[in-house]
């Protein structure tokens, strides 16, 4: 195995394609901005879920990279303002082509093998595959953590990401997905402009982001004023199960999410990262 110094800087990690995926409006005939009533926190315990991943390139067998990847996920529940970790999940994988895994000589205890698809070998493409594979592992781990939480508790669960990846979560009446990334936008043209110029403490009309795929409904919510900063500043997409898709429920959930702006989480994504999610990330980094 030829030793590696680290992930090559040229690798386009998480470089998701910027796309427009048209959504279907559920509320209103055309996209509108609805003012959200005054912020009011959830009146029940709330839990936050997030996951992290870490990949270390061990080296190359021939030209094939082999990486050690660790994915973690946790749920922290807030009671009386204080957080307690109620679910924690961890998986460690050796990731590479079958030949590289075989040449490495087997997995250490507690480590599983994750094979990359075969095909013409290009080290950078393989590294991108490793990244995608670990992304999937983390995503699955988050879903496992959500399931574990739901088996224990019935309260609100706020995830950092989309609900549409899981049929269970997509129908969970107490699950909320907060999507911070806007690489996929649900509208174009004048609707897109209204979408991106949403005033602070407003939400858009409710829409169905992935028609025909999962029964998830969504709306955009502006957490912080964006003028003078950026169109995306403080803008999140809120995803809920269809049962929560009525305008009244959208208002109630939006009010609670506006309350979750505080305390400010800090860091580069402070305008969209809820503090509860931030504490999960802190926990996962520290563990």
């Amino acid at each position, binding site marked *: 195995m030829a030793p590696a110094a680290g992930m090559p800087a040229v690798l386009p990690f998480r470089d998701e394609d910027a796309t427009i995926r048209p959504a279907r409006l559920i509320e209103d005939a055309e996209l509108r901005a609805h003012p959200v009533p005054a912020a009011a926190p*959830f009146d029940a315990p709330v839990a936050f879920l997030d996951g992290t991943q870490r990949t270390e390139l061990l080296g190359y067998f021939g030209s094939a990279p082999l990486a050690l990847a660790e994915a973690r996920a946790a749920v922290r529940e*807030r009671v009386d*303002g204080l957080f307690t970790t109620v679910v924690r999940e961890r998986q460690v994988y050796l990731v590479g082509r079958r030949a590289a895994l075989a040449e490495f000589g087997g997995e250490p205890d507690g480590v599983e093998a994750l094979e990359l698809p075969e095909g013409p070998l290009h080290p950078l493409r393989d590294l991108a595959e490793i990244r995608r594979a670990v992304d999937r592992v983390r995503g699955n781990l988050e879903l496992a953590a959500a399931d574990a939480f739901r088996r224990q508790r019935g309260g609100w669960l706020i995830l950092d990401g989309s609900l549409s990846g899981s049929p269970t979560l997509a129908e969970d009446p107490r699950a909320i997905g907060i999507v911070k990334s806007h690489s996929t936008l649900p509208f174009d043209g004048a609707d897109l402009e209204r979408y991106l110029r949403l005033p602070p403490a407003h939400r858009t009309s409710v829409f169905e982001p992935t028609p025909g795929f999962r029964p998830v409904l969504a709306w955009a919510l502006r957490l912080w004023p964006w003028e003078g900063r950026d169109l995306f500043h403080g803008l999140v997409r809120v995803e809920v199960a269809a049962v929560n898709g009525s305008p009244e429920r959208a208002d109630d959930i939006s009010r609670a999410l506006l309350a*979750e702006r*505080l*305390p*400010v989480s800090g860091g580069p994504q402070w305008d969209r990262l809820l*503090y509860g999610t931030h504490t999960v990330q802190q926990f996962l980094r520290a563990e």
Partner: protein
Amino acid sequence: MTETPVTRHPIGRVVATELKPSTPHQFYFWTARESAVGIGAIVCVSAGGRTVYGVVTDGSAYSDLPTPMMDVLGADGDPASPPAPSARSEIRLYLASVLRQEPAEPLQPVPIGPVHLATDEDVALALRMEGYTVGERATGIPVGVYAAGGLESPVSLDCDFLLGPEAAHLNISGVSGLATKTSAVEFLLTSIFQTFPAHKGSVAAVCFNVKGPDLCFLDQPAELAAADRGLYDRMGLAAEPFRDVRYFAPFRPDGVNLNTLRTNEALAESTEPLVWGLREVLDFAEVVMNKDDVDAKADAFIDFLAERVVGREFYDPSLRGKAFQVQSFADLDEFFRAIFDFMEALGKGGEVWRTHHVATIRKVRNRLSNISTRSKGLVTDDGGVNDLPWGSFRDRSVQVIDVAGLDPLAQDLVFARVVSKLREHLERRDLGVDHVVVFVDELNKYAPADGPDTYVRKMLLDLSERGRYLGLVLFSAQQFRSQVQRRVVGNAGTSVFGRMDMDELATPQYATLSPATKIKLATLPKGELMLRHPHFTQPIFVRFPRPAVMTGREGVERFPPAVELPFAEAVARQLRSLDRRVSADAVRLAVDGRREDDVRRALAATRRSRPDDPFAYFISVLGKRVVAEPAPTQRRGVRAVAAPEDPYGP
């Protein structure tokens, strides 16, 4: 030493980073937000075969808020904005200074491990008390309890380091008005008297009462709260006042009323006058003269007086035909007058008497006569003396000398003479006890950091540097340690601090204390102290009970001082302190019309002799009344002796 049992619930965990590493002398640990840890708490870390005891000296807390601006943004600039639904993650990070490591060698950084609050056993080990509080020859003196996290662990000082010979002396600092300094010393003396081990010999105390009635009721019990009694029980001490206390106070200028607030008749029996004569004062003439006065010439003349004149028969035909018997200031003044008369008679050239210049003689005379004026009541003109029981000090006895009403010069005189006499007797091993604790409040007055190098200051320095070899121990107190001669307080093996003034804490002497410890000192409640002792590698906070003796204020309320009595009644009271049967009317009749000096002299003689029948003795010394006879109005002429023939006559 065993590792901390794993069943104990840890209250924190040691953390070490590159910026905040563990070292052999300190470590950081975090705790839960609701932990009982505070500044001064003793904790222990047990990991990797090593047990480390530490005392918390600083603490900090911070949240994950990256910048204060984020909080402003979150609140939209409005401090009254509603609270957030989530409490920020917060850390309570403490810094502990190492008290002890086991094993002691090799000395290593504190290991990463769980942190526990100390138990009674841990406290004893952390403070190295197991070396002197157990066994047949234990030398522990309880000084208070370490109180933290619901624990009340007795803390003891080592009497080898408190009363000598290894180290000695105790100094206490603290702001006035909280009664902490006096109370602490009273409690500690109680503890010493009850626990000073027999194999160390006997011990007594001499306390100078320098203000108000502070120490005037050490023999009277206090009403203690249950919590205080509990502390006594915890330390194995009896909550009772001192059993053997004698009070000494000078007279007021009238020579019969005592100059003290302990004049209630119910307490008269244990209150005695402190009266000195010329001899007692002359040996300490240096005390009452400033440095400029005591030049070599004055010193030589004082020596001459002490060695040749005072208390001896001095004959010089040039002064007068009969010998001088100088016993009192009055006799001394007569002696000086004779010298001046002689020198004046000589006229020009009469400036030197026996090699002493007239100016020197005049200066010494002025200074010495000034003593009897400024110390009137302490120094008698008639030679009568009533002094401390030199040579017969009793084990566990307290002598209180009330100098509160004296002129500062007289206070210096009392202090210098008493300490010097203690030293003399301890050197000769004939005081009656092996150790004497001398308690002096307002040390800054007697040994100031600045100012002239006085006799008293030099004496205190000598006491602090060499007293421990003799068993002469100084317990001193002052408001501001920085205002006391550095070497005097520096020689105190044990230092105690009550509530401190922040300005004082800002002086360099306190530079080794952490800011948190300083804040704790500045806000220390009554009854709590910070201790430095040779066995404790870090300052320790302890709580002590209220002393079991009446405070000065309570004492004055319970035993109101008698009003200053007319001369005859004051004499009667003095006699009644010797024999309660003495009738005031009888005394009044006896002294009526007599010269006050004669009465005082008779009273002093009675006190000195302590006869079986004091009144009869007093009357006998006073002598029969002499009825004055009118002088003849006309002198009878005396016939001239018949003159022989005058050879020189005309």
